[in-house]
């Protein structure tokens, strides 16, 4: 029972315990789940320790058989790629619970139970080293989020919840098919084994095979990301979800997609990944600009932030499919950044909603006069999300753009447009909501941020600055993990370099892991 298993099991235990707590004693349930999730967070911090000694490798590995036929193993562990996402999940769960303290007053018990179940699923997704196990956790995340949206959401919650569920389901069944196919071919679900087999050429696919498998996986992930044009579930889900739901959804759940792409699509199907890269990147670039433009004209704050997510995650995809160190590091870093800044944005919007029960921007205005601190926090978060240097997003965006620049400066240029636009929509939002004369019907209930809310916000603010200024804490371990993934996905290429058409060959050279800047 190593630390990781503990961190993984506790939420599940919490879920079951919450289920048997007396349903009428709301405050007890709240307190219990808060304390538990905090404890989990503290424990999960322990997981980071090995990465400060040596950034590399898998740690806290447990590998025991679960099911004999087909051979499915309970194989979990963390590496530099997953560790921070685990931390992100464990951090945001208590924050979400704290945020919902007053906001959630009906079916308190179920709510917190689902929050913990969700945490369980999320952690699981990030630590699973067995494809099947991964799939199980992937689906497990689906159920609690479905209920969170459906039960505690707003008016059109049912539509949103079902749309969310079916969208994801449609993607994941294909992934399941691909997984089984993979198993029948390789006779193992174990990620490390699979990669190893591919490395040593024991397991190879025909071009078509690999392409189809890649697409099956990628589709499932792209829906979760969401990659344009598969994004339309996101705005609905976000607008209708309760604050906590939006936070978890934006901050962590979307990362399931991006993480999985990095973790599985690159090493398992390197060639297909490279062949598709140009098209995927085009979609990502469209997403970046498109998301920003659509966000620009949203009348609803949550929708605005939701579309901004589409734009932000475009960067992650762009970085990932640049196939070089900088791009990949940036992508992963950007996952965390987006988790923090967008999570914070949804949280703050949630605070405002609690006060005024509206999400329409036009109903706000001049908030900064009655609520100066709230608006300060909001401003800082805004600046973080528009990539102001010394705040977290800047690092991610810089690395992603730098990485893409190694491949094509045109990509970089288009993506950089997104950076301009992000300033447009966020600052416009800030101006309309917070500056100017205070809106009449805000008077009275637009009181300033309270200690509880501040307590929820502070950690995120600290992280924004920390990740923006002292990247040494996070970047080395991420780099190490990414370097390995790049190595694997390159090795795959070398193996069938002959079967490679020149396009991917070009991509392959002009996207070095960085070691030689290509002076033309």
């Amino acid at each position, binding site marked *: 029972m190593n630390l990781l298993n503990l961190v993984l099991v506790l939420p599940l235990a919490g879920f079951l315990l919450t289920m048997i707590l007396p349903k009428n004693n709301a405050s007890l349930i709240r307190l219990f789940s808060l304390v538990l999730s905090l404890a989990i967070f503290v424990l999960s911090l322990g997981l980071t320790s090995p990465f400060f000694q040596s950034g590399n490798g898998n740690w806290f590995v447990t590998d025991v058989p679960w099911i004999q036929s087909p051979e499915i193993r309970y194989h979990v562990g963390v590496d530099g790629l997953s560790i921070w996402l685990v931390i992100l999940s464990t951090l945001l769960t208590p924050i979400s619970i704290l945020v919902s303290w007053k906001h959630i007053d009906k079916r308190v018990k179920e709510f917190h139970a689902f929050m913990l179940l969700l945490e369980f699923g999320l952690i699981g997704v990030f630590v699973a080293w067995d494809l099947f196990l991964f799939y199980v956790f992937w689906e497990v995340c689906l159920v609690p989020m*479905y209920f969170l949206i459906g039960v505690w959401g707003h008016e059109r919650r049912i539509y949103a919840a079902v749309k969310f569920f079916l969208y994801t389901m449609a993607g994941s069944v294909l992934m399941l*098919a691909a997984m089984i196919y993979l198993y029948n071919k390789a006779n193992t679900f174990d990620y490390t084994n699979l990669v190893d087999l591919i490395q040593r050429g024991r397991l190879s696919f025909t071009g078509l095979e690999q392409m189809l498998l890649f697409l099956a996986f990628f589709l499932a992930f792209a829906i979760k990301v969401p990659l344009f044009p598969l994004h339309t579930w996101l705005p609905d889900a976000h607008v209708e979800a309760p604050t906590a739901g939006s936070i978890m959804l934006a901050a962590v759940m979307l990362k399931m997609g991006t993480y999985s792409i990095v973790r599985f699509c690159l090493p398992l199907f390197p060639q297909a990944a490279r062949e598709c890269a140009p098209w995927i990147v085009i979609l990502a670039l469209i997403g970046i600009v498109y998301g920003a433009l659509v966000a620009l004209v949203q009348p609803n704050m949550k929708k605005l932030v939701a579309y901004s997510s589409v734009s932000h995650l475009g960067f992650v995809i762009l970085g990932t499919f640049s196939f070089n160190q900088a791009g990949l590091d940036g992508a992963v870093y950007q996952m965390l950044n987006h988790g923090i800044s967008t999570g914070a944005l949804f949280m703050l919007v949630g605070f405002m909603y609690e006060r005024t029960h509206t999400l329409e921007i036009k109903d706000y205005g001049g908030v900064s006069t009655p609520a100066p601190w709230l608006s300060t926090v909001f401003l800082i978060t805004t600046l973080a999300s528009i990539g102001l240097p010394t705040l977290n997003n800047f690092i991610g965006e810089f690395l992603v753009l730098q990485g893409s620049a190694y491949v094509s400066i045109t990509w970089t240029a288009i993506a950089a447009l997104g950076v301009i636009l992000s300033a447009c929509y966020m600052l416009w939002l800030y101006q309309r909501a917070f500056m100017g004369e205070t809106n009449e019907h805000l008077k009275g209930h637009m009181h300033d941020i309270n200690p509880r809310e501040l307590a929820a916000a502070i950690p995120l603010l600290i992280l924004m600055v920390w990740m923006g200024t002292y990247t040494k804490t996070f970047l080395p371990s991420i780099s190490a993990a990414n370097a390995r993934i790049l190595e694997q996905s390159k090795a795959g290429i070398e193996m069938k370099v002959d079967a490679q058409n020149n396009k991917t060959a070009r991509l392959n050279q002009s996207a070095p892991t960085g070691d030689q800047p290509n002076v033309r």
Partner: protein
Amino acid sequence: MSDNFMPSAVEIMRFMPEIILILVGTIIMVFEPLVDVKRKSALGFVALLGLVGAASATFRAMDNPGPAFQAMLMVDGFANFFRLLVIGVGILTIVASFAYLKREHAESGEYFALILFSIAGQGVMVTANELIMLFIGLEISSIASYVLAGYLRDDKRNNEAALKYFLLGSFATAFLLYGVAWIYGATGTTNLTEIRRVLTNRDLAPAIGLVGTSAALIFVGLAFKVSAAPFQVWAPDVYQGAPAPVSAFLSAGPKAAAFAIFLRVFFTAFEPIADKWQPVIWVSALATMIIGNFAALLQTNIKRLLAYSSIAHAGYVMVAIATHSQIGAAAVMFYMVAYAFMNIGAFAVVTHFSRQGERYVDTDDLAGLGVRQPVTAALLSIFLLSLIGVPLTGGFFGKFYIFKAALDANLVWLTVLGLLNSAVAAYYYLRIIVVMYFREPGESTVDLQPLSPGVLAVLWGSAVATLILGIYPSIVLDFAGKSAALVK
């Protein structure tokens, strides 16, 4: 054929479960008049005893598997697996029925007796190694279930269901029988292994067209019983019309037995012409899935919805049969177990919820159940999620093994289409969850009684079983895998 027709003790032992069931059934029938009206449910417990006895007899039979009665029966692991399954179904059905019968003022011995007979028939089906035995078992099971379907004599829906089931059932059986006649004519035997031997033997082998025809006719009969397209038409009406617990029974017991003989006949007797029947089943499977899932999308009557869903699930199982492989057979066996639990669980909730005269059988009636009876709603959600095929439930592994087998057999397209189907299916199951949790309670839940102990037991039992199958499927799967080996 040995000239000594007296069965040996061993053979009797192998046949003991059916004997017990028949005896107990008869006893119940005989002694019913002596039992006071208020105590009829006591007979139910007698029936339960009988089932338990049969189960233990089955375990005994497992110790020394082998043929019985001039190899008319084949009591192998495969048979015993399904025996236990149908017996289990019987137990769950009876336990779930007490409250229902009391509610409908229809407690009587024959109900239990009929269930026992039907199960006995299914026992004969799954052990049958010979087409006539198969036919007889089928009829025993069917005739009993015809009556069960129309159990509430004065209920219009009940006896309409019964009539449809009866007429169409015997209609289809006639085809099956005709097929039997033809294969007998073609090969001179009705013993499955014999048939196989003849078909594989070059110089004895009859005209392939002849064999194909009889195979087709038999396929009709069996496909009808498992409600596979295009012979699924009866299922929705019957399941909707029959009493809820009976629908549960029909969708689990007879169906499982029918699939068992499906496997036996097509994997044993018609194995030599597999390449011929495989495509037929391929098509039938796809059609079944599509019809079941899409037609279910618009259903508002829960029983009917579950009926269509059971058609869809039959489709998935057909996929496994289409693989024509041992792991395919194992997948079928596992699936039938998982399906039995989740489906009976779901029907049990309907039984409980529908109230006197089954007034509340609309999905919208469930509105707010999540608030009024959280436990019921939670358990039903587990069954529904399992029917969707969400991991950590039996339903998921059922699908998983089926599609794994399918991909093994290179049925890639069937797999993809099947999985997409299951995504479609998610929609109508989710709708029930939506209604239960996301809608405010309506008047339909006002006078809802707490769960009766019987139903409660069934719900918890099935729920736990569903989860166990979802978390540790090996328990059943290994058994299935070993047994499936004995099919040929």
